[in-house]
């Protein structure tokens, strides 16, 4: 039973991945849920586990899109090589931005990430030779997946591509589950709780923050790369400030400090946007109301609500907060 409880987040994620094709007609919509869930995982790692509010996530997402686009269209790289290199580029850019940003805390940290977000947006806009400028990088192919030269798996239809993204998503989820429950992950929680104390007991907190920034950049760039392959285009909007904001909103709505909450937040946002935008073009107004609700009444997001309902249903409502937050799945 403890093994089941320890891996319950992973099992829930697997259930969602298997359920999406049954519930949704569109393979692209289902893929979009998982792609954004990846980006939200990256953001959650910073906000939920380390207490860092980054407005720079769009930079990593956009860099992933451009990197995979350029590598596939110009260099003609095989799919996996292009994706892996995009991840490395995302980690590198995040380490660069992180190196500056983690020197400050609170408002100034947020401002630094915002400044970098603006800078990279205009950089992408000013280099149309590389990025396609305003039009975006067009015609990004989706080459078949080569399995060590033994077999070639085509990713041409939306559901085939979904299967590929689903495997990548679950693998990443599992890796991040290991990272967040590791000695390293537990140290991040300590930094989130009380950075001065973490330093006083001997941790070089800057180094930890830099490492988690790079991991977050890698995961978010992977999301951006998959997004570009899904749509066949790396648009300028992927590196825009709005993308950072969207990823942050999904993270907060889902709930911070829990990996499955990231999937919940992304699924809720993407599916609500898809449904509401057909009913009312000003649907973002409703999203604003929901964010106000989350900020005022439900700090643990949708995950917290689900957790509360579950406890109520199973009659295990206990007063007080759990002793160790990270174990309170």
């Amino acid at each position, binding site marked *: 039973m403890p093994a089941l409880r320890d891996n319950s987040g992973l099992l829930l994620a697997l259930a969602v991945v298997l359920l999406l094709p049954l519930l949704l007609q569109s393979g692209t919509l289902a893929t979009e849920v998982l792609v954004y869930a990846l980006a939200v995982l990256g953001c959650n790692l910073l906000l939920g586990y380390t207490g860092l509010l980054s407005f720079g996530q769009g930079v990593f997402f956009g860099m992933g899109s451009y990197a995979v686009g350029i590598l596939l269209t110009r260099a003609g790289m095989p799919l996996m090589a292009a994706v892996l290199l995009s991840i490395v580029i995302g980690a590198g850019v995040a380490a660069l931005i992180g190196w500056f940003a983690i020197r400050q805390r609170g408002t100034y940290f947020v401002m630094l990430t915002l400044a970098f977000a603006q800078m990279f947006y205009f950089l992408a806009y000013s280099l149309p030779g590389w990025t396609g400028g305003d039009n975006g990088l067009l015609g990004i192919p989706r080459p078949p997946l080569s399995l060590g030269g033994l077999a070639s798996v085509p990713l041409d239809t939306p559901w085939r591509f979904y299967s590929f993204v689903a495997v990548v998503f679950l693998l990443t989820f599992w890796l991040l589950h*290991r*990272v967040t*429950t*590791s*000695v*390293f*992950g*537990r*140290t991040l*929680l*300590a930094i989130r*709780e*009380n950075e*001065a*104390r*973490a*330093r*006083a*007991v*001997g*941790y*070089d*907190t800057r180094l*930890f923050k830099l*490492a988690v920034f790079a991991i977050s950049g890698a995961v978010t760039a992977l999301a951006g790369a998959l997004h570009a392959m899904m749509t066949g285009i790396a648009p300028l909007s992927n590196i825009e400030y709005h993308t950072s904001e969207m990823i942050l909103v999904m993270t907060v709505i889902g709930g911070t400090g829990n990996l499955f909450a990231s999937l919940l937040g992304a699924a809720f946002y993407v599916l609500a946007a898809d449904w509401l935008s057909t009913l009312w073009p000003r649907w973002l107004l409703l999203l604003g109301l929901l964010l106000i609700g989350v900020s005022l009444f439900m700090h643990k997001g949708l995950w917290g609500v689900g957790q509360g309902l579950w406890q109520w249903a199973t009659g295990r409502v206990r007063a*007080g*907060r*759990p*002793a*160790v*937050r990270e174990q309170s799945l």
Partner: protein
Amino acid sequence: MSPATTMATSPRPGADQDVASAGAMQPLLDARGVVKRYGKFTALNGVDLRVMPGTVHSVIGPNGAGKTTLFHTLTGTVPVSAGRIVFNGQDITREPDNVRVRRGIARSFQVTSLFGNLSVRENLRLAVQGAHPSGAFDMWHAPGRRAGIDALVDTILERLGLHARGAEAAGALSHGQQRRLEVGMALAARPRAIFLDEPTSGMGVDDLDGMKALIRGLATDHTVLLIEHNMNIVMDISDTITVMQQGRVLVEGAPAAIRDDPRVRAAYLGNMITGGQR
């Protein structure tokens, strides 16, 4: 001025012996001419402090004397403007606080500073791990593979009298228990020297004896530098007392000598007493 010359009246059992041998030893901590300026304000104006190994060395003084600033410069929380700090033969003047932990310096905070949402055990585990921070970059394994850490955490919990509350969130402990855990966090690094910044601050009368016993217990295998307002505790457990006033050392000596020193009475005990006999 040397502690060795004034220790005959030390109230701590065995302290005479410590200090007799300490007389031949090098000080564990040797701070010379420590200056700390904040803009035009000089908080520390050339402080010398020599802490002998195996002793309880207290720093007292009226509010604003510079005690806490001195504490911060010694633990590396704030950099010095001038001066030199040598610990265990190493020049640590320019080292940040987290590196000084590896040298064997551990500290407690004047205002309780714990990982409030994490369990008491986890607080101590993090403090034990902090002394070997490279292991904390293990991104693959959950904590608990090293039995030594668990055993050490158990020992400390026992010593703090918090064994039954190990699974509770640190933030849910009473104030007195949090103050004890605060000392335990310093103990967890198995340091050479423990720096305690007003460990009894805000504690109720009922908890004071427990804290006094805890600090006295620390002195059996650590060097303790204590900043404390409670004169009862300072006079009872110190081997050496340094009295500070306006960013300088006013006088240094054994408790009895300090109690009878007219300069101290004038500067501190006589009028500007803070904390005082409780």
